[in-house]
Each structure stands twice: as structure tokens, then as C-alpha cells.
């Protein structure tokens, strides 16, 4: 509680639950201003975008000549990575190895969607299964730390295994479903601190973990942004930024062509993320990630502010669902409901309460932006 009066952005639905938010004289927030100033002018989904798209595809194909695959594509079963898989394979004619990380929380829809796409597109799949006992212990460590970003273990594992695999197999291109269309406005660091910060992860583990991390994959921002990308030439490509990506149309296409099963909300392909974003983060901290997601859709013209405000009035889950998901997560983590409730009620901490590489991110982000390697970015 900062004592700051409540304010809602005049054009999107971000508000002062993001403590770092600033507003201009018209009441427009810095998220919107960053989008219009830094992202939109460089974001082309028309003929120019198509040309860049095809040039990129040609480079990827050239790098993969004579190899079984020319790129790897990180696949969660969610809408972004699913649509990406379709675009990359059918529209660009690439030969991706589909890469999936199983952290133990896959929903049935996610597994079904991966299966349908891989089968119908005739692609190869590689799954990295994270050791569940280590994952569970690390997730519990995050609960015990009291910080908001308790989904870091899943995200961190995802990125580090994918980069490691690309490096080991000499694959130069990693395709991700990250996109401006639905993600131009990002979660504030206060809500979700950088999941790639391995110093933070290790400090939380050191203080609250009960078993060593032997097989759990870790990476570091220096490693994957600097070493792998700049020195070893592994390029991360975001194809969805080169084509018009309208979420509702993408879903309809996938449902019709592949028997794809939609999710009630973004990121619900993981049962844990569903619990985290749909209940834990809003109920414990007052951070509703739907504000971020809807705001992205508003500035990109896919949702009206009125519709967003109406939807934000009801919580993502009704009480019965909350009780069921709470019981499920507790049971899966091997703790009692009372213990989980205890973590829910404990004093709140932030990422600043633990060691981090925040300085490196603060130094690196402007450089990445200057080099054109990133636009917007998290703050």
C-alpha cells in the first residue's frame, strides 16, 4: 500500500496495482505510450512484414540444409505456440523440431493439442521431463519465500532446456510464440520478476529448498542472451510479429483444422499457471494479469476497453473452482490445504528481498533495445 490514489489508464485497463505505472497529462499510462512510441512504428504485419518473414524463413532453411530439422520451436500447447507451429510449418515451409517441456502440470487440453498438431503436421517431438521431486521442492521454496513470481521454476526450466538443446544439437534458430499482438504490454517486474534470473532462483532455493537441484536445468541471462545469442549465433525468432495475428481467428483456424481444444484463459495449459494467474496472484497480491493481457488486446484493436472492464469485474474463477484448484495444487505438491493456506497468508516479500542480477538486466536492456534486438521490454 503506497497511499497513492487509485488511477486507471484512460485508454487501456492498467492501473495503480502496478506500482511503477506513470500517467501523462491525458491520463494515458506509460505502457500505452511505450507501445505507440517504441513498438508500433517498427511492427509490420503487412507486405513489408511478409517480406521480412520470408527472408527470415530463407535464412533458417539455409542453415538447416542436410539436417533433420532447421529450427526448434518451443511448444506448450497454448494458443501462441500452437498457431506459431501452424504458421512455421504450413506457411513458411520450415522443418521444426517441436520442443516441449513437461514440468508436471500439463493439462489434458495441452497434451491433446500438442498431439493433434504434431500428428497432423507430421512433425517430430522432443519432450524434456523435469524431475518432479526437484520441481516440487523448488516450487515449494518459492511459496515459502513469499514472493509473487512463484511460477519462475516452470518458466526458467522451459527456457534453459530449450537453449541447452539448441546448443547441443547445433541448431541456430529458436522459434518462440512471443508476440506483440497479445503481449505488447508486459507484466510489471513487481508482479513477475525476470524468470531467467538464476541468481534469484538459486538464492530462494538455497534458503527454502530441502533437496539439491541436480537435474533441474538452470540458465542465466548472460548465458542465453549474450553467450548463446551473440557469441554462438543462436537466434531467437518471433514469427508471429511478422503476420497479422488476431487471436480469435487463430483459435478458430486451429479448432477447425486440427481439433484443437481452447482454454478458458491465456496460459491455462499448465494447471499451475492457471492457479497462479487465476487465483494466487490476484487474491494474495491484487495483481490481475488479465489487466495486462486485455490491455495488449486493447491497444492492438482486438478488444474494447468497455469489454475489458466488464470482464475484469468478475474474478476468473468462481468459489467452487477456487476450492477445487486449491485442493488440487496442495495435493500435487504433497502438502495439506492448511499449509498452502499458510503460504497464502504469510507476509509478502518482493524480488528485492533476495539476491538478483537486476543490475545486469538494467544495464543490458537499453543495449538490447539500441541494437534493435528487443523493443518495449519488461519494467
Amino acid at each position, binding site marked *: 500500500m503506497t497511499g497513492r490514489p487509485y488511477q486507471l489508464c484512460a485508454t487501456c485497463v492498467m492501473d495503480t496495482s502496478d506500482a511503477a505505472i506513470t500517467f501523462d497529462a491525458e491520463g494515458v499510462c506509460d505502457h500505452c505510450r511505450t507501445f505507440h512510441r517504441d513498438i508500433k512504428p517498427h511492427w509490420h504485419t503487412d507486405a513489408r512484414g511478409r517480406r521480412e518473414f520470408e527472408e527470415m524463413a530463407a535464412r533458417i532453411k539455409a542453415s538447416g540444409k542436410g539436417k533433420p530439422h532447421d529450427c526448434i520451436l518451443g511448444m506448450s500447447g497454448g494458443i501462441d505456440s500452437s498457431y506459431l507451429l501452424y504458421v512455421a510449418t504450413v506457411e513458411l515451409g520450415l522443418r521444426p523440431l517441436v520442443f516441449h517441456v513437461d514440468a508436471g502440470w500439463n493439462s489434458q487440453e495441452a497434451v491433446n493439442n500438442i498431439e493433434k498438431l504434431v500428428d497432423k503436421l507430421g512433425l517430430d517431438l522432443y*519432450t524434456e521431463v523435469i524431475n518432479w521431486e526437484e520441481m516440487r521442492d523448488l516450487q515449494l521454496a518459492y511459496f515459502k519465500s513469499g514472493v509473487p513470481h512463484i511460477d519462475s521454476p516452470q518458466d526458467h526450466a522451459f527456457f534453459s532446456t530449450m537453449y541447452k538443446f539448441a546448443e547441443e544439437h547445433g541448431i541456430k534458430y529458436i522459434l518462440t510464440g512471443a508476440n506483440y499482438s497479445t503481449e505488447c504490454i508486459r507484466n510489471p517486474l513487481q508482479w513477475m520478476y525476470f524468470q531467467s534470473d538464476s541468481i534469484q532462483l538459486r538464492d530462494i532455493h538455497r534458503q527454502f529448498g530441502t533437496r539439491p537441484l541436480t537435474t533441474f536445468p538452470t540458465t542465466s541471462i548472460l548465458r542465453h542472451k549474450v553467450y548463446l545469442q551473440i557469441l554462438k549465433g543462436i537466434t531467437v525468432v518471433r514469427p508471429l510479429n511478422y503476420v497479422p495475428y488476431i487471436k480469435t481467428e487463430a483459435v478458430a483456424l486451429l479448432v477447425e483444422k486440427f481439433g484443437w481444444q481452447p482454454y478458458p484463459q491465456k496460459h491455462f495449459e499448465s*494447471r499451475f499457471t492457471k492457479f497462479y494467474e487465476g487465483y494466487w496472484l490476484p487474491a494474495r497480491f491484487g495483481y490481475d494479469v488479465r489487466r495486462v493481457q486485455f490491455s495488449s488486446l486493447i491497444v492492438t484493436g482486438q478488444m474494447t476497453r468497455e469489454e475489458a472492464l466488464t470482464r475484469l469485474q468478475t474474478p476468473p474463477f468462481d468459489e467452487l473452482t477456487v476450492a477445487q484448484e486449491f485442493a488440487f495444487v496442495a*495435493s500435487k505438491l504433497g502438502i495439506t490445504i492448511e499449509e498452502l493456506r499458510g503460504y497464502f497468508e504469510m507476509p509478502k516479500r518482493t524480488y528485492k528481498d533476495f539476491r538478483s542480477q537486476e543490475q545486469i538486466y538494467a544495464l543490458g536492456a537499453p543495449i538490447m533495445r539500441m541494437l534493435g534486438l528487443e523493443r518495449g521490454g519488461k519494467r
Partner: protein
Amino acid sequence: MLRPRIIPSLLIHNQGLVKTTAFAAPKYVGDPINAVRIFNDKEVDELSVFDIDATVTGRPPDYGLIQRLAAECRMPLCYGGGVTTEAQFGEIVSLGVEKVAVSAAAIADPGLVTRAAAMVGGQSVVVVLDVKRRQGGYEVFTHNGRTATGLDAVETARRMADAGAGELVINAIDQDGAMQGYDQTLVAAVRAAVTVPLTILGGCGSLAHMAGLFRDHGTIGAAAGSLFVFKGVYRAVLINYPARADRDALVAGARS
């Protein structure tokens, strides 16, 4: 009409799900509870879970694990691993498990099968026979395929059925993890010898293998491990199971 059963068969080793090849080289597959959850949503016919550590380490069944599996599992569940007494049958059934599987202990003492059936009913007593091809027939093995019993598989199957077993699971060690098809000779031999419900495990690599089994033997249980857990040339872990319409098509060709 009674349908043939299509059964995912899961192995637990060190609390985690694994898949073996010829009963060796266990590959880590993930958390058992999440696998059960996904199978629930796929509305699986029934599920078998075997703890492959208990018997070789001489440990009793892990009741905590069994209780968690039973609490999550929305379809009929068969549990096996470390079962040596009829009291354990009763204990496991009262945790909410429909069927209890036994192997080494029943082979050593068929009376266990009879006593267990008197308590929990024959329908809940399953005997698993792990077998390897041997000169002129098949030999029964125990302790994860490491101990040769010298007993003939078909003869042992008969003995277990006579003792009151409600179901026999015939597990072909040579085919385990190979995904090249069921051992047809073995199935035919056991099917001809006993009338109790049979479930065949070991070697299933495709739904076509199951369709073949149903075509040849009618109402029989088709179990598979690798098929429902792996996908593709890299054996990528991905839980899968045919949708209801596909299943109905599969069993439609079953000989009555």
C-alpha cells in the same frame, strides 16, 4: 455388449513414472499423479499402476502413494507391487482401488490367491505373469524379470485361474518397450488354456496391434505402456489415449 478393455499400464520407480525396455533401462516419464489426471480427462477405460521397486527391495506396498493415486483416479484402478498377504489385498481395496495385482507371492503360494479372493472377491484379485520365450514355450520370471522360476507360463496361468484369480495379466518381457506388436503365439496359448478375463501387455506399438488382438480373441484386455506415454522417433513423453469414437471403431471389429 461387453467391450474389450484398452488399458494404459504405468510403472512407478522411485516415486516417479518410468518406462522400461525389456524390463531394463527405465526412462523417467514424470509425476504419476499428473498422468492419472490427464488420463481422467481422456476418460480412459481403466488404469493399471505397478510399483516395480517394492518386490525387489522386499518392501510392502506404499499405502500413501496408493491412497493418492486412488483419490485422483476416476476410472477403475488396478494396483500391483509388493503384495504378499491377503490382508494387504483388503487394505488396498479399502483405500479405493478396484483390483489388486500380485505376481511373485502368488507364484510361490497359489493359496494366497484363494485366501485373497475369499476376502475381497475374485474379481479384485489379479495375477501378473511376466514371461520370456524359452525353448518350446514360455517361462515365468519374477522380480522384474531377474529371477527365473523354471515354471511354464501356460501351466502357471491355469494354476492361478484354478486358485480363484479374477484376471490374468500376461506380460511379455521380450516385447517390453519394443512397440513391435503383441506376441501372438503367447496370447493364443494362454487364451486356449484359461477362461478367466485376460489382459495382454508387452509390445503394443499402435492401435492396429490392439485391433488385431480384438479381432483374434474377442473380449480381451489390451494393455500398453509405451504407446500411451511416448510419441515419435525420439520417444518424446506425451500422454495420449484414443478418443471414444476411435475406441468404438477399434472394438467394433472384435470377434464375439
